[in-house]
């Protein structure tokens, strides 16, 4: 999908026009809008075909915000995505609103990479979008939005790929766009991991023929501050290990690397828009497979830093790889803030469903900035509890901590967050449990089906709102 900025619509191309509540309509569309009862209510639209071309009126409601325009762009594509080319008429809008309109359209227009011999007759055909805008600063505004789009697209593509292709090394192979954008990539393989003492990551990856990796992505930025660090869970496929999952829906576990994908996507966004903030991402990549070498329930693992973990359940593996990655990131990168993303628990999906990610933090200020960035980008997060009350359930008889509580119906999301909190030292830290929001079962007016890239735009916005000001307190 390509987007071009122009000032007038090419001939015979469908045009989507945002209309505020009670806003003026083009004369030629008034009659049709009246018959259809369209008045600009957010989330509604009206297709006018009587003009020899398609004009889609899209409601943005009263006093529209960035979010309203993003939703309107999405709705335009939901309705017109069957066409090869459409135009978004943003003339008269401020640059920021126009860019949000376009970003919404691009996000909604994403489709997963296809692996077919025969073309899919039902595939969305949309290939070209013309953004009609004469706003001053539109090029710069779109370039920022496009960076977010490219990051989200990278994350979604990675999440959508099947796990035979997307092994830990397959994941690394697909980070080339980052290198091109100026991000340095360092890969720690088995010998280095052993040397650094990342025993938990090594254990989780041991059952698989595809070996575990730790990837460090570094964007230098321009400021002389410690980096903000993203840490991502990248389980390229999660069978559950010896504590194997039920077969039903196990295929969804190819998306169990969505946290790492979001971190990589966010790094791409920062690099593409030449962010001033130094940033790093640490991706813990492994396949949790069953094999003769697989780690077992009951094993005790020694993590980076020496703390030991008793494995109660091999399917609680995400927190194991994160324990190493977080500990390593904090010690080696001395970050000013750490945000980890992980499709970590079923418990968070029971708690918050598919509408919001769970936010856990040891730092109220950072938590508030992350929540605000989520609000601004529509990647919503809700703060959830962790701490002493949940720690007791993780006591082990023979190690420093157990990786989860025994028994069913546990508040596992809070247990997992409490577990992770012990590996971040004194760093300001936020953990986002994105299980449940990394993919959507079906498309709707606002969202494409499948991978969401959840977290990319949130992190990108967090950095721009919090970490790019050289004078901040």
């Amino acid at each position, binding site marked *: 999908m390509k987007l071009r900025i122009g000032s007038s619509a090419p001939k015979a191309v469908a045009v989507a026009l945002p209309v505020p509540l009670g806003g003026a309509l083009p004369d030629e569309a008034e009659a049709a809008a009246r018959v259809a009862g369209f008045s600009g209510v957010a989330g509604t639209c009206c297709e006018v075909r009587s003009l020899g071309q398609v004009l889609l009126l899209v409601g943005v409601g009263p006093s529209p915000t960035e979010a309203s325009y993003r939703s309107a762009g999405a709705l335009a594509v939901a309705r017109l995505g069957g066409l090869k080319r459409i135009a978004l008429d943003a003339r008269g809008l401020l640059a920021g609103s126009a860019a949000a309109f376009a970003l919404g359209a691009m996000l909604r227009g994403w489709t997963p990479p296809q692996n077919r011999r025969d073309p899919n007759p039902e595939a969305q055909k949309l290939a070209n979008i013309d953004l009609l805008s004469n706003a001053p600063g539109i090029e710069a505004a779109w370039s920022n939005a496009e960076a977010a789009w490219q990051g989200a697209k990278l994350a979604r593509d990675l999440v959508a790929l099947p796990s035979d292709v997307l092994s830990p090394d397959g994941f690394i192979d697909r980070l080339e766009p980052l290198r091109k954008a100026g991000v340095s990539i360092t890969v720690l393989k088995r010998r280095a991991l052993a040397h650094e003492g990342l025993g938990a990551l090594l254990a989780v990856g041991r059952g698989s023929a595809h070996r575990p990796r730790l990837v460090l992505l570094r964007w230098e930025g321009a400021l002389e501050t410690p980096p903000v660090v993203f840490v991502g869970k990248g389980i390229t496929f999660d069978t559950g290990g010896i504590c194997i999952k039920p077969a039903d829906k196990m295929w969804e576990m190819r998306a169990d690397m969505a946290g790492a994908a979001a971190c990589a996507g966010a790094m791409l966004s920062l690099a593409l828009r030449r962010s001033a903030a130094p940033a790093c991402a640490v991706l813990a990549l492994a396949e949790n497979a069953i094999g003769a070498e697989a780690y077992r329930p009951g094993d005790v693992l020694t993590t980076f830093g020496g703390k030991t973990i008793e494995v109660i359940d091999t399917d609680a593996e995400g927190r194991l790889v994160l324990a190493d990655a977080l500990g390593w990131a904090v010690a080696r990168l001395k970050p000013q803030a750490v945000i980890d993303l992980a499709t970590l628990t079923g418990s968070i999906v029971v708690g918050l469903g598919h*509408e*919001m990610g769970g936010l856990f933090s040891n730092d109220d200020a950072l938590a508030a900035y992350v929540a605000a960035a989520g609000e601004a980008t529509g990647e919503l997060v809700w703060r959830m509890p962790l701490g002493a009350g*949940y720690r007791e359930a993780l006591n082990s008889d023979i190690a420093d901590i157990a990786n989860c509580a025994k028994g069913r119906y546990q508040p596992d999301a809070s247990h997992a967050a409490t577990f992770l909190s012990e590996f971040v030292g004194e760093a300001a830290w936020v953990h986002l449990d994105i299980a449940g929001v990394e993919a959507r079962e079906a498309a709707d007016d606002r969202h494409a089906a499948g991978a969401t890239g959840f977290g990319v735009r949130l992190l990108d916005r967090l950095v721009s709102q919090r970490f790019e000001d050289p004078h901040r307190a």
Partner: protein
Amino acid sequence: MLDIGFAKSVLPKSGALVLLVEEAETLNADLLAQADEATGLAISRALVAAEFKGKAGSNCTILAPGANLSRVIAIGIGKLSELTQRLAEEAGGACVPLLTKEESAHIAAGALSAELAAAVATGAALRSYRFDRYRTKEKAEDKPRLSKLVVLAGHPVKAREAWVPLKATVTGVFVTRDLVSEPPNVLYPAEMADRCKALESLGLKVEVLGPKEMSKLGFGALLAVAQGSEREARMVVLQWNGASGEAVPTKGKKGKVAKIEKTDNAPLAFIGKGVTFDTGGISIKPGPGMEDMKWDMAGAGAVIGLMATLAGRKAKVDAVGLVGLVENMPSGTAMRPGDVVTSASGQTIEVLNTDAEGRLVLADVIHYCQENFKPRLMVDLATLTGAIIVALGHEYAGMFANDDGLAAQLSAVAEETGEKLWRMPLAEAYNKQLKSDIADMKNIGGRWGGAVIAAEFIQRFVATGTPWAHLDIAGTAWSSKDTATVPKGATAFGVRLLDRLVAAHYETK
């Protein structure tokens, strides 16, 4: 309840003595020096030998140290300057299980303010609760013997004054714990309503509505839940008018609802889910653990205990408690998955799961509450979802609120009382999942986010403009282990929380 007295802080001549020991370089506590001297320094030697440092939560028992004392118990209270009311309660509670062999004991609290001394008494009283009316063969020596506790205070008169309202709170908590602990064959809706009636002696106005009255009021949702059981449903309205002195006429029996205007003097309303036993109905629950469902009336139990508390301490507030009491049974007359019921509000509900019954009960009671009382605010309590347990465990109850001010007040008193709340979201995206093909709504949504969806369901029955909070107490109504002030079993979660809410924000001076 424990007989609690207050006296001047002097070394008792005999019996058991509890010392509240500060965490410091040299151990420090009221009466420690005197007791130590009287026992020839046996106490300080024992504490040193036991490596007792006064850390909050620690304790040390010394048997027969001399001076005619049967035992001395040191309870660590941490730093005295950091001792909150809650920590004082925990210290008071901590000594109770160590005193089961004593008939009476003294607690030396002379170093504490009168308020904190009263809090120590509160903690001890709360922890001493025991539900043993069905133990017929327990030997006397196996029963805890402690029946009297004397708190030795710097200002015994002031401490006794501070204790008076707290005693009412503890009494209210025990009302709730008794109700929640009762087995479901003993405690069914009519019996529970009778026990509410008995609270009229406290000055509450108690009105009981049966199936006929509720039918006239159009309680189609509540009655649908009850229709599978032999036990008739009840709704009980408990009014306490400590501010105005006048009860609102409910007119429920005529099948009509009084039209009154909402005013600043409107009552606070507390609403409780009271499913005296929940089999799940036709959507029956699995067998293991089903016995726990006797406490599916803990929300109603808490509301009743709260009303008893407000009346007991003559709170200067107008408040009304409403509880919907039903038993959810599978039978030939039971409601089925697929049934469509019409609630008192007129909204229709497609029942897809008969085990999501609590919200049906609440829907009618909440609607009635608003029509009849135009309350200033509403708080409902319900053991509503398993999802809240998977989300928050037993640490916090889930709080859902349409009003940030009320939510903030609740969070603050939760922190103070140790009945902890965690705010959970309400959002349109969850509400959408209740869409039904043939009725105004379904009673369940998708598989995920069940506690949020349940709260959204209830919100559909809350009039806009009424500050409202819903407390999902499924994970906190019952405790599988002893804690400092709550023995294993019914916790009465919500009574102290809401009592404190009233006291802190809604009582006239």
